[in-house]
C-alpha cells in the first residue's frame, strides 16, 4: 500500500441508501441488529451441545433469552450512539437518525428487552446463565459503548469481551457452572474479535474518522492494524487447539480448527501482501471480514458435532 495513494480510492464505496417503507415491527427488529445476533446465537447454542445434552426446550429458552439480551444491548447502543449514527453512512438509515423512532422509545425498548431476558433466563434456566447474560449487556453498554468506543483504539479489543459472553451463557445453562473449556471459549471469541472488526474498520475508516471514533486504523495506521490482526490470529489459532489438547474435543474438532484457522491466517497474510505491494487490499480485507464470520460459526458447530459424535 503506497502512502501517496489516496485512501478514498482504496476503500470500498459506501452502499447506496435504498428506500424502505416505514414499519414499526421492522424498526424494532432492526434495533436488535438480527444479523449480528445470529452469530451470537451460534456461539451460545453450540457450547450447550458441547457441554452436555440439553433439552430442545432449554435450548429454545436460552436462544430467546440470548436474543432479547443482545437485542436490548444493541438498541441501547443505538440510543447512546444516536449522535454519530447520523454522521456515518453505514448507520444513517437506523430508526433514530432517520427520524422513524424517538431516542426515548429506543431506550425503553432496549431496557425492556434486557429485563425480559434476565427474568426468562433466571426463572426458566438458571441464575448463573442470567447473571452472565446481564453482565454481557452491561459490559457492552457501559464499558464498550459508553466508555471505550470513543476514547481508545482498544475499544474493539476490550469491547470484544461483551461478545464473548454468549459461550459462557450457553455453557452455564447446561452445566450450572463454568470450567476451563468455557473460559477458553470466552477467550476464543475475545481474540477473534479484533481481526474481525479491524477488517471492517480498515474499509470504513473514513466513516469512523468523521464520527471521531478512534478505531485502530485511524490511530495506528493501516499497516500496523493489519500486523496486529495477524498477531491476534496467531493467538486465536493456538487457543482453538487448547480444548483438544486437554481432551475436551476430538480429531474432528482438531482438523476443523486447523483448517479454518489456517484459512483465516492465509487471508490476513494475503491482505498484508497486497498492502505491502501497493495493490488494492480492500478485496482481501472484505474476504477476511466475511470469512471470519463463517470461521467462528463453523468452529463452534465443529465443537458441538465433535461432542455429539463422541457420545
Amino acid at each position, binding site marked *: 500500500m503506497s*502512502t501517496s495513494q489516496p*485512501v478514498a480510492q482504496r476503500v470500498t464505496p459506501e452502499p447506496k441508501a435504498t428506500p424502505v417503507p416505514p414499519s414499526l415491527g421492522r424498526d424494532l427488529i432492526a434495533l436488535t441488529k438480527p444479523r449480528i445476533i445470529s452469530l451470537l446465537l451460534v456461539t451460545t447454542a453450540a457450547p450447550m451441545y458441547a457441554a452436555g445434552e440439553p433439552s430442545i426446550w432449554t435450548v429454545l429458552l436460552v436462544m430467546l433469552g440470548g436474543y432479547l439480551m443482545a437485542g436490548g444491548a444493541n438498541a441501547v447502543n443505538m440510543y447512546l450512539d444516536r449522535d454519530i449514527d447520523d454522521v456515518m453512512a453505514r448507520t444513517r438509515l437506523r430508526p433514530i437518525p432517520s427520524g422513524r423512532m424517538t431516542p426515548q422509545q429506543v431506550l425503553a425498548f432496549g431496557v425492556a428487552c434486557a429485563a425480559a431476558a434476565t427474568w426468562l433466563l433466571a426463572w426458566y434456566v438458571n441464575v448463573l446463565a442470567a447473571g452472565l447474560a446481564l453482565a454481557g449487556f452491561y459490559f457492552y453498554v457501559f464499558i464498550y459503548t459508553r466508555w*471505550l468506543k*470513543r*476514547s*481508545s*483504539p*482498544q475499544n474493539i*479489543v*476490550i469491547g470484544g469481551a461483551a461478545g464473548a459472553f454468549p459461550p459462557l451463557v450457553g455453557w452455564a445453562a447446561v452445566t450450572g457452572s463454568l470450567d*476451563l473449556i468455557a*473460559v*477458553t471459549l470466552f*477467550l476464543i471469541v*475475545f*481474540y477473534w474479535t479484533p481481526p474481525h472488526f479491524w477488517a471492517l474498520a480498515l474499509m470504513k*475508516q*473514513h466513516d*469512523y*474518522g*468523521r*464520527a*471521531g471514533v*478512534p478505531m485502530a*486504523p*485511524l*490511530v*495506528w*495506521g*493501516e499497516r*500496523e492494524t493489519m*500486523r*496486529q490482526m495477524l*498477531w*491476534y490470529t*496467531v*493467538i486465536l489459532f*493456538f*487457543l482453538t*487447539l*487448547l480444548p483438544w*489438547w*486437554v*481432551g475436551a474435543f*476430538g*480429531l474432528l474438532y*482438531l482438523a476443523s480448527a486447523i483448517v479454518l484457522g489456517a484459512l483465516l491466517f492465509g487471508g490476513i497474510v494475503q491482505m498484508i501482501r497486497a498492502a505491502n505491494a501497493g495493490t488494492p487490499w480492500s478485496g482481501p480485507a472484505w474476504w477476511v471480514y466475511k470469512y471470519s464470520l463463517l470461521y467462528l460459526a463453523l468452529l463452534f458447530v465443529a465443537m458441538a458435532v465433535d461432542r455429539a459424535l463422541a457420545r
Partner: protein
Amino acid sequence: MLMSVAVYDLLFWSAVALCVIAQLFILKAVFFPAPLPLDGPAADGRAAGRLRPASRPLEMAWVVLPAIGLALVFWWAWDMRHPDAAVGTAVAVINTVGGTVS
C-alpha cells in the same frame, strides 16, 4: 489420538512460545507505538479535533489484562493435564518458602 505425553507437552510449549511472541508484538504496539500516520482519515480526524488522544496508562492496562488472562488459561490447561506435577510444584514452592522463613 494416541500420542506420547512428551509429544503433547512439546505441542503445548510450542503453542505457548508462539503465543508469547504474538502477545509481545501486541504489547509493543502500545508500549512503543509507531509514528502516527501523516495522511488519510487519521490525520484528517486529528486535524479536525475529532480524534482525541487516549490515556497511555489505560491503553497499557487494556493490553496487559488480556495477556494475563491468556497466561492463566494456559496455566489452567497445563494444570488440568498434569495435576500431580502442579501440586508437586506448589508443594516444592511452599517447602522452599517455609525453609527460607524458618
